[in-house]
C-alpha cells in the first residue's frame, strides 16, 4: 500500500511539472505590453537592449570579418557613404566626383570629429585602408579592398604602400584610384573594411582596438563605453558626431547570449527590446506562433540557400539530370513546413532584393512533369535504360537540424517524383567545408549572403572554375565574359541586362539548385521606431528611437 501511494505521488509530481511547462506564454507578455503603454510619451528612456549572440572577432574595422563585429562597428563608425533605404548616401563624404572612366573617385570630406575631438581627415582613411591591406597586419578581409588600384599587389607583397590607389590630397580631400571600373564602389565605401581609423591614436598605440577606453575612438553615431568580453558591450551617444542632432538613442546595450530560446524568453520578460535577426536568432519552433499573434517582423534579405552540384561527378556532369533534380524540388513545401520564416522559394540565383523580378524566377517550382522529361533525356544521353542504373548519389550537408530536415524532404521528393535514391551524409562544419572546397562531394548544401548590394556578389563566385567559392567545377565562357564586361559598363541599365543574361545562363546550366531566399525574422518592442535594416540584413540604430 505504501509503495503504491508513493508511486501515485511521484506520478502526480511529474505530471504537474509537465502541465506547468505546457501552460500558455501569454500572461507575462500582456503585463510587459501594459507597462510599455503606461509610460509617458515624453520621457521614454531612449535606451536600447539587443542581443548580438557572440563576442565579436575584432572591433577594429580593418580586422573585422564577421557579422557580429559588423553589427557593432556600424553603430560606432561611419564610412564615406552609408546605406539608407537601399541606396548609398554621402556620410563622412560631403560630396564626390567620379572620373569618366569610373576609375577615379574624389571625395570631399565633411567637418567631422572623432569621439575624442580630433578631426576626421582624409589621412585617417588613407591610413586605415593601407593598414588593412598591409600583409603584416593579417586582415582576413583585406580582399574587400582589392578593388583599389594595387590593393591586391600590396597585400600580396608585390607592391609598396605608396603604390596603393588611395591618397589624401589634403585634410579634406581623398582621391581613390580603382583597379577596374567598379559600378558599385559607393556601396563598398559603406562597408566596415572601408571605415576610417583615427591615425593619430593608432600610430601611438597599436593595441587601441583591443578594449574600450580613451584610445578607442570612433567617428560614428555611438561611442563604445565598455566592452566586457564574452558578456556585453555598452554604447552611448557620441556627442561629437556630425549628425548628433538626429541621434535619439542615448544608450545601446549589446548582450552576448548565444541561445535562441533564451533570447526570446528575455524579450518576453522585458529584458530585451529586440530579439531575432539581424543580430540574433529566434527559435524556428516559435515562428508560427509569433506570426499568428502578429508579432513577427519579416524582411527578405540578400541571401540564397542553394544546393551545389559537383559537375564533374557523374551523373551530375549531365545538364539534364541536374535540371531534373532541380525542377523536382517542392520549395513552397520546404519554406512553409520546415524553415517557417516566410522565406521565398528560389528559382533564381540573385535574391529579389537585388532583382525584384526574381521572386518569380527562371523556372516553375515543383515542376515534376518537366523534371521527368529531363530525366528521360538525361538517361538517354548517358546511355542508361532505367533510373536504377544511375550511379549512386550522395547529398551532403553540415550537421544542423534545419539542414537535415530540408535534406530529408528533398531526398523524399526526388524519390517520389523521379525514383532517384540519394544517400544523406552530414559532417561537422569544418570537415564539411573542407570536403566541399576540395571537390570531395556530389551534391552539397551551401548558403550565400551578399556583402554589398550588387548582383555580382551572387554571380561572380561561379565565374572561374578555380575561384575559391565555386566548388561546382563549372565554368562557362559566355557567362564569364558577360561578368567581365559588366564591370566596365557605366550605364546601370545596360549593366543590369548583362548580369541578367549571365544569370539566365547559370539558371539554364544549373550547376546549383537554388532552394530559397533568406529572410530576417525578429520581434521588437512596438514603440521602437526608425531602426534601419538594409536589404543585406545589416542594422543601423542611428535613426532609432522609442515613442
Amino acid at each position, binding site marked *: 500500500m*505504501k509503495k503504491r501511494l508513493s508511486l501515485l505521488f511521484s506520478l502526480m509530481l511529474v505530471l504537474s511539472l509537465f502541465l506547468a511547462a505546457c501552460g500558455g*506564454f501569454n500572461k507575462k507578455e500582456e503585463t510587459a505590453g501594459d507597462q510599455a503603454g503606461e509610460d509617458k510619451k515624453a520621457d521614454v528612456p531612449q535606451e536600447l537592449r539587443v542581443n548580438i549572440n557572440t563576442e565579436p572577432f575584432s572591433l577594429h574595422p580593418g580586422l573585422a570579418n564577421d557579422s557580429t563585429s559588423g553589427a557593432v562597428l556600424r553603430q560606432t563608425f561611419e564610412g564615406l557613404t552609408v546605406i539608407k533605404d537601399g541606396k548609398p548616401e554621402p556620410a563622412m563624404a560631403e560630396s564626390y566626383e567620379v572620373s569618366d572612366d569610373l576609375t577615379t573617385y574624389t571625395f570631399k570630406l565633411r567637418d567631422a570629429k572623432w569621439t575624442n575631438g580630433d578631426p576626421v581627415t582624409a589621412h585617417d582613411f588613407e591610413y586605415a585602408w593601407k593598414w588593412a591591406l598591409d600583409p603584416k597586419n593579417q586582415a582576413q578581409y583585406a580582399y574587400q579592398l582589392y578593388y583599389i588600384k594595387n590593393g591586391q599587389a600590396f597585400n600580396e607583397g608585390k607592391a609598396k604602400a605608396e603604390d596603393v590607389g588611395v591618397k589624401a590630397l589634403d585634410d579634406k580631400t581623398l582621391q581613390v584610384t580603382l583597379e577596374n571600373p567598379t559600378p558599385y564602389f559607393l556601396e563598398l565605401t559603406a562597408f566596415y573594411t572601408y571605415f576610417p581609423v583615427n591615425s593619430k591614436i593608432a600610430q601611438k598605440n597599436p593595441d587601441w582596438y583591443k578594449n574600450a577606453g580613451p584610445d578607442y575612438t570612433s567617428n560614428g553615431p555611438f561611442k563604445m563605453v565598455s566592452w566586457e568580453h564574452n*558578456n556585453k558591450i555598452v554604447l552611448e551617444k557620441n556627442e561629437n558626431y556630425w549628425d548628433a542632432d538626429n541621434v535619439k538613442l542615448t544608450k545601446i546595450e549589446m548582450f552576448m547570449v548565444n541561445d535562441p530560446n533564451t533570447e526570446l524568453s528575455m524579450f518576453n*520578460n522585458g529584458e530585451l527590446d529586440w530579439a531575432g535577426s539581424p543580430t540574433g536568432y529566434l527559435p524556428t519552433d516559435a515562428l508560427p506562433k509569433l506570426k499568428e499573434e502578429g508579432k513577427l517582423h519579416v524582411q527578405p534579405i540578400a541571401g540564397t540557400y542553394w544546393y551545389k552540384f559537383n559537375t564533374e561527378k557523374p551523373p551530375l556532369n549531365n545538364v539534364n539530370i541536374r535540371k531534373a533534380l532541380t525542377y523536382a524540388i517542392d520549395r513552397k513545401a520546404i519554406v512553409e513546413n520546415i524553415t517557417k520564416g516566410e522565406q521565398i522559394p528560389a528559382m533564381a540565383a540573385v535574391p529579389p532584393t537585388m532583382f525584384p523580378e526574381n521572386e518569380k524566377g527562371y523556372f516553375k517550382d515543383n515542376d515534376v512533369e518537366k523534371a521527368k522529361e529531363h530525366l528521360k533525356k538525361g538517361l538517354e544521353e548517358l546511355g542508361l535504360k532505367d533510373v536504377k542504373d544511375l550511379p549512386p548519389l550522395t547529398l551532403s550537408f553540415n550537421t544542423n537540424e534545419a539542414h537535415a530536415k530540408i535534406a530529408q524532404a528533398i531526398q523524399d521528393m526526388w524519390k517520389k517524383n523521379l525514383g532517384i535514391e540519394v544517400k544523406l551524409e552530414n559532417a*561537422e562544419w569544418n570537415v564539411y567545408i573542407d570536403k566541399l572546397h576540395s571537390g570531395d562531394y556530389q551534391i552539397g548544401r551551401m548558403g550565400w549572403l551578399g556583402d554589398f548590394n550588387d548582383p555580382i556578389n551572387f554571380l561572380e563566385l561561379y565565374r572561374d572554375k578555380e575561384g575559391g567559392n565555386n566548388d561546382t567545377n563549372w565554368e562557362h565562357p559566355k557567362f564569364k565574359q558577360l561578368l567581365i564586361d559588366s564591370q566596365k559598363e557605366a550605364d546601370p541599365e545596360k549593366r543590369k541586362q548583362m548580369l541578367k543574361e549571365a544569370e539566365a545562363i547559370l539558371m539554364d546550366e544549373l550547376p546549383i539548385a537554388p532552394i530559397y531566399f533568406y529572410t530576417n525574422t525578429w520581434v521588437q518592442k512596438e514603440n521602437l521606431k526608425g531602426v534601419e535594416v538594409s536589404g543585406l540584413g545589416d542594422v543601423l540604430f542611428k535613426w532609432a528611437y522609442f515613442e
Partner: protein
Amino acid sequence: MLKYIGRRLLYMLLSLFLIITATFFLMRAAPGGPFSGEKQLPPEIEKNLNEFYGLDRPWYEQYFDYLISIAQWDFGPSFKYKGQTVNDLINNGFPVSFFLGMEALFIAVGLGILLGIIAALNHNKWQDYGAMVFAVMGISVPSFIMASFLQYVLAIKLGLFPVARWESFMHSVLPALALATTPMAFIARLTRSSMLEVLSNDYIRTAKAKGLSKFQITVRHTIRNALLPVVSYLGPLSAQILTGSFVIEKIFGIPGLGSHFVLSISNRDYTTIMGVTVFYGIILLSAMLLVDIAYGLIDPRIKLAGGKKGE
C-alpha cells in the same frame, strides 16, 4: 605525507604531458583549420595568416614550441578573438565559472547530503520515498531542461529572477540551481546508500547500546564514515563544475570558461583548445590529489604514505 604528495605531483606532470601530446595530435588530425569559413579566403591571405601563426612550419617545431610556451604559462593568441590571448580568455572566464560552480557545489553538497541523511534515517518511510523520487528526477532530467524549466517558472511566470545573463548575484541563482540539480541528486543517493550501510555496522549498535542520542550517533559516527564515497565523487565533480558547463553557460548567456571547451573545437581555434584542455587537466588532477589527501583526514584507516595498501 610530503613524499607522497611529491610523487603524486610527478605523476601529474606526466599525465599533463600525455594530455598535451594527445590533444595536439588529435586536433591537428581533424580536417579544416582556423581560417576555413563559408567564404573562402584568397590563398595569399591564408598563406600569410598561416605564416604569422606559425602553422606552416613542420609539426615537430610547432609541437616543441607549444611545450615550451605552455611551460611558461603562455598559451598564445586566440584565433577566434583577435587581440585576446588564450590566457585572457581563461583569466576572464574562469572566475565567472568558478563563482557559479562554487555556488552550485554549495547547493549540491549541502542539500544533497541533507536529503541523503533524511532519507537514510527514515528508511522506507515517506521522507525516504519523497527524497528519492526527487533524486531520481534530478538525475534523469537533463540540465538543459531543468534550466529552461527554472527560467520559465521562476523568471517568466513568477518574475523572481532575471531570465539570463551575468550581472548580479540574482542572475547567478537560476544557473547555479540548474547546475546543481544532477550532482545534488547523485550526492543524495550516494549519501543515503552509504549511510544505510554504515548504520547497519556493529559500532553503531554499540553506540546505541551505550545510550547515545540519535543526533550524536548520526553526527559523530555515521556521517563521517558515510561521506567517503561522496568525497571521492566530489573530486571530479568540482573539477567539472568549477570550470564551467557549456550547456548552462549557453542557455543563461554566462561569460564563463565552459563555452570555450566546445566552441574552440568547432572553430579549430588551436591555441584555445590547447589552453583550456591543459587548464582543465591541471584543475582535474589537483582536485583528485586533494580528494586523496582528504581521504586520509576523514578516515584514519586509509594511510596515504603506506605504499600499495593505501591505494
